[in-house]
């Protein structure tokens, strides 16, 4: 199989594992997310904390090897973004949306898989949102 094909297989497997995790933890249910945001059930912190801890062990170890990924040749690095006002304003806008809907991008797609077809409203909203962001970036560039 070609390298590009292997990367697609890895992404498919990775997506499946991620989707299983979101389903087990019920992040696919906006009601569960809203329960957390209304401080009735703190489970979401365990999901994010558990995920971040496992990811930290892998990523921090990988980044120290100085090696590169077999499928892409990409060097093992860290995900560090520049801290600017966009990070804060974007986070606030994201927070409003998350608080209104109890949905975020990964769980929205996984939720389709558990039969929650009305989540399409959120997916349509997110795609429109991505377009709006594109126009914002484009008008800044001009």
């Amino acid at each position: 199989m070609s390298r590009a094909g292997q990367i697609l297989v890895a992404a498919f497997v990775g997506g499946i594992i991620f989707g299983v995790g979101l389903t087990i933890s019920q992040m696919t249910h906006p009601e569960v997310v809203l329960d957390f945001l209304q401080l009735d059930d703190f489970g979401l912190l365990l999901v994010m904390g558990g995920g971040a801890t496992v990811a930290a062990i892998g990523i921090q170890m990988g980044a120290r090897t100085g090696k590169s990924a077999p499928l892409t040749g990409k060097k093992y690095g860290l995900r560090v973004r520049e801290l600017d006002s966009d990070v804060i304003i974007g986070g606030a806008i994201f927070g409003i949306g998350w608080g209104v809907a109890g949905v975020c991008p990964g769980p929205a797609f996984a939720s389709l898989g558990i039969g929650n077809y009305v989540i399409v409203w959120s997916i349509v909203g997110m795609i429109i949102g991505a377009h709006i962001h594109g126009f914002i970036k484009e008008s800044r560039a001009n």
Partner: protein
Amino acid sequence: MVLIQIADLVVTAFPNGISHYLIGGIVIGASVVFMYFTTGQIIGASTALETTVSYYSKLKWFQQEEFISSRDWRAVFTVGLIVGAAGYTLVSGAELWVTEVQWWRLLIGGLLIGVGARLGKGCTSGHGICGLASFSPASLVNVVVFLGVAIIVAHLTELLGVVP
């Protein structure tokens, strides 16, 4: 006595138990680690929104190399999310489930999430799991802001009587 108090606290804070949250979180982390060691990519679900738009939008922002080169595997990853959730539901014998949250909340929330996640350079997975795992200060700031704002908004929504 102290142990009983701690047990009480756990029951109050986690009325639906803790194991499925922890196991789910660990599985999500395992997916991140798998993608990292095979491809070197530190994934974030919201980037796929923009890379998918790059398939059809002529806008220069969407036609950047980073989007075009990663859009295929990101789309496949997103399909994997759906397949994984459907597969687990099938195997575990759970019934199909539909949210009662009203459509306009899902739509308006989704729109703001789309703008905010991209402007803020990440979402709950990109910043909340992968950014924190990278010890990135920008991610910590982003997570604190979106958690704080979302908790306030969710309470306001409830106060305004919007249920569910």
